[in-house]
């Protein structure tokens, strides 16, 4: 994971979450992971392609997803319905887009794929080939893990 990529993702996640949730967001300690990792329940994936390739995964449990979607839509949502799914996808899009914009400014050119949302129990994600950077974010509605696995195209 190239050092220059780390900050844009951390900053974008912090900025966007603070703004849309209108509350304090705390960043946990970053760490690296390469083995299979369990997914908490709701995961939005945004792919990156171009000079840099990889993917960004936003991982949270169902409760957190519904609460965040409720705040963002300013209405009380209770289950993972289409609106919640669309909201979480949009959140993933906003964060990744802001990070990519920052990276563009630094001279790294690449594009995003539309976010895909996956929900379910007992899921795991494995990317054996790439080491992932985990950025844990704590919000009053629960924690979100941002899992960035990108590498230079070799």
């Amino acid at each position: 994971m190239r050092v220059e990529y780390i900050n844009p993702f951390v900053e974008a996640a912090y900025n966007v979450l603070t703004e849309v949730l209108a509350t304090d967001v705390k960043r946990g300690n970053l760490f690296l992971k390469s083995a299979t990792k369990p997914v908490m329940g709701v995961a939005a994936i945004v792919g990156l392609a171009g000079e840099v390739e990889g993917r960004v995964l936003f991982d949270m449990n169902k409760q957190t997803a519904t609460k965040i979607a409720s705040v963002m839509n300013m209405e009380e949502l209770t289950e993972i319905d289409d609106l919640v799914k669309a909201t979480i996808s949009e959140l993933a899009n906003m964060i990744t887009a802001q990070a990519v914009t920052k990276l563009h400014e630094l001279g790294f050119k690449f594009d995003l794929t539309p976010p895909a949302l996956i929900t379910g129990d007992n899921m795991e994600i494995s990317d054996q080939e790439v080491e992932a950077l985990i950025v844990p974010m704590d919000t009053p509605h629960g924690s979100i893990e941002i899992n960035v696995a990108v590498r230079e195209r070799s």
Partner: protein
Amino acid sequence: MSTNTDLTKGQKDADRLAKIDFKMISFTLAGKDYGIDILKVKEIRKAGNFTKVPNTPVFVRGVDNLRGDIIPIIDLRTMFNLPAETKDKESQENIVILRLESLVLGIVVDTIEKVVGFSFGSIQPPHPIFGDINIKYISGVVENAGRLYIILDVDRIFGEPEEPAETHSENVPGQPEASAAVAVEAPQGAEVPLDLQFVAETLQAFGQFHLSPLNRGWVSARLEDWKKSRKERGLDFQLTQKDEAEEFLLKFASPGSGRLWSAEDVASLSELLSFSSPSLTVWNPGCGRGYESYSLAMLFQTRFSGKAYKIWASDNDLLSISTAPSLILDDDEVELPWREFTVQTKNGLQFNSDIKARIVFEFHDLNHLNPLSEVHLVVVRDVISFLRTPDQEKLLTEISEKVRPGGYLVLGTNERLEHPEWKSIGQGTWSVYQKI
């Protein structure tokens, strides 16, 4: 009484003979009887003088040509840490050729006996006391004609590529035929002197420093010095605190770490290196704050200026590596010859964009995979000794795979590598190895 038991025994044998539905090839390993399901066995033969394959685990004897098919030959005795008589190269070994789902391979055993048939129902589940082989590789035990056969589960043993390597750590160390890999994983075995073992344990606990063949020479020598100096001060040589472990390790650090290399250092290192390829990949794991990587960039800039080179530097300390891309230098840190590579910024001296563009700094854990495939120079000073001993072995194997013949490996001044693939060409403070 005796006739009665004979009768029942005879009856039982007759019963078993009546339904022979399982046959196996029986053979011996270190005096014990083993069997393998005959359906897994393709043939048995005698062969020898196998072609050795570099960079394989010790239990791989090499490859053999089986009527045009190249098959790997594995020594089951080495694999399971059993004693094996060493035969000279020319002599013939007993080979059982196995046909598994995905591969055909040969295993070397002591003697091959016969085909034994019996009823599948008479196989009993394995019991830990039955042999020197890990229970998960045994599918059962069977008694036949007064002998006890241990039936090996060859699919388990050879099915998954990861499994064989693990058998080493699961076996009891100190077997007579302790292989090289075992010796590395258990450096605190019987052959390590007791005081060295004590010191090694404390260094591991306090300094995250792991004794291995790489640094054992230095640790032993340092221990002698340490004992002397502690005696003069009237102290016991044992390390009891963190700062003592740090003091012990103080002299381990290579000269020039944590700052830019001097012009003489760069000159003496570059004299040892020569590259034929026009574009070079340099790998610098454990680069810390980046001084080493920048020093390397200046070495290439001054000595190999015609080459296109890229330095991949990484560290798992986020704080250090984050500052590396825009390292700020004090004026007195930069020797005169290096001035031309720096620019003055409002925060202080920095390297110019030419140098910066040559280095990619990565936040990376060495225990994870990395995408580099072909590397010409690896500079990994005072890093490997601080990994866990099995990880050290793994990383060195990875380096051996990634570096092409003719490529170089630079270790810490006090680290030594004994490996048939690497030739030591280092001198002075440089511990440099060239791949053969």
